[in-house]
């Protein structure tokens, strides 16, 4: 059946056009932009940006031992790192290189042999810090 172009169809076309423009107007390009991807934000909703790769006991001097905690970060935006032992910050270091991956290691000089510790780490930047990494449990030999 041929489409008859009459007033009634024009009225329908007008409603369709008005609805289309209304929907277009409601959709915003900024709707997809979320301000929760900064790891230093308390409302950060992304994956953790720092993790503990390894913890091992090593000799740092003549019969002087320390626990070395190696970290890896997935962001370049940091000025330093904080080491937590059983939830308490015990060490803070500042960034010394501009490598994309955190290369500094943190040393726990006060670990007692035969004691189990839970180590976590966080990054710091502009007086802010990220959430803590997953815990790494280590028994000091």
């Amino acid at each position, binding site marked *: 059946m041929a489409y008859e172009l009459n007033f009634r169809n024009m009225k329908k076309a007008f409603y369709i056009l008005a609805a289309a423009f209304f929907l277009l107007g409601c959709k915003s390009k900024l709707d997809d*932009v979320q301000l929760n991807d*900064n790891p230093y*934000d308390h409302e950060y909703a992304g994956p953790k940006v720092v993790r503990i790769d390894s913890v091992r006991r090593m000799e740092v001097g003549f019969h002087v031992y320390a626990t070395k905690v190696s970290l890896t970060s997935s962001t370049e935006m940091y000025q330093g790192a904080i080491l937590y032992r059983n939830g308490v910050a015990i060490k803070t270091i500042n960034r010394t290189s501009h490598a994309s991956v955190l290369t500094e290691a943190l040393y726990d000089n006060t670990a007692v042999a035969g004691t189990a510790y839970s180590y976590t780490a966080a990054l710091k930047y502009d007086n802010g810090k990220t959430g803590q990494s997953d815990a790494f449990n280590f028994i000091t030999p």
Partner: protein
Amino acid sequence: MPLKKLLSLLVLCSFVCSIAQAQTQEKGFLHLRIYGEPDAVYRIDENIFRSPDTTFMLSAGSHHVKIWSPKTIMRDTVVLVNVNDTAKYSFMLKLLPEYIQYKKDYAEFMRVRNRRFFVSPIWMGITIGTGIFVNKQFAQKQYNKALDAKTYYSGTGNQSKMDEEKANFATYKRKYDNLKKTEYGIYGVSAALFVNYIRILIRQKNTPVPQFTERSAFSRLHFNIYPDLENRGLRYGLRIEL
């Protein structure tokens, strides 16, 4: 006196007497004026006339007058003419409802046909230009400010600074959204103007020239019923307007 002459004398006398009798018959005048329709045709007794403002010499007494025109309601009345007097009658003819409707339809037809069609495209251009202006001059600026706030947010580790940029982003986004709605609303007006423009073109093309048609015979048919006091009954009949 010969018989032939006597007969001629008698004929002459009878002719003179008839003329005298005719001259002594009672006469009057009727001045008839018709307003509202100069082309109306009217009938006085059995004679038909057309001029709308005329004086007639008629025999004294009542006369039947019918005034008719295709555009007007027929008048059917009786006028009284007195001896040696001028009876003045004026009739204002009323237009038929069908003719009034025809005049309205024709006026609408002429209005549609003579509509100035360049106005709608001009308004369409103005509205689209206004929408683009709103976008470029206002909405885009707010959009860029929102993105700047996002950049500042991502580049700091200070929580108070992040909260401030979040608030800025929300403000700029709200302004941007309102401006975009305004912009698309203006485009919607332009679309409505476009649809209306097409509708007018179609209407102009499809509007038929109105035709005036006289009343149907059925609508002109009247059924009359009235009491007959002499015979103590009812009289009835059909009448059709001519």
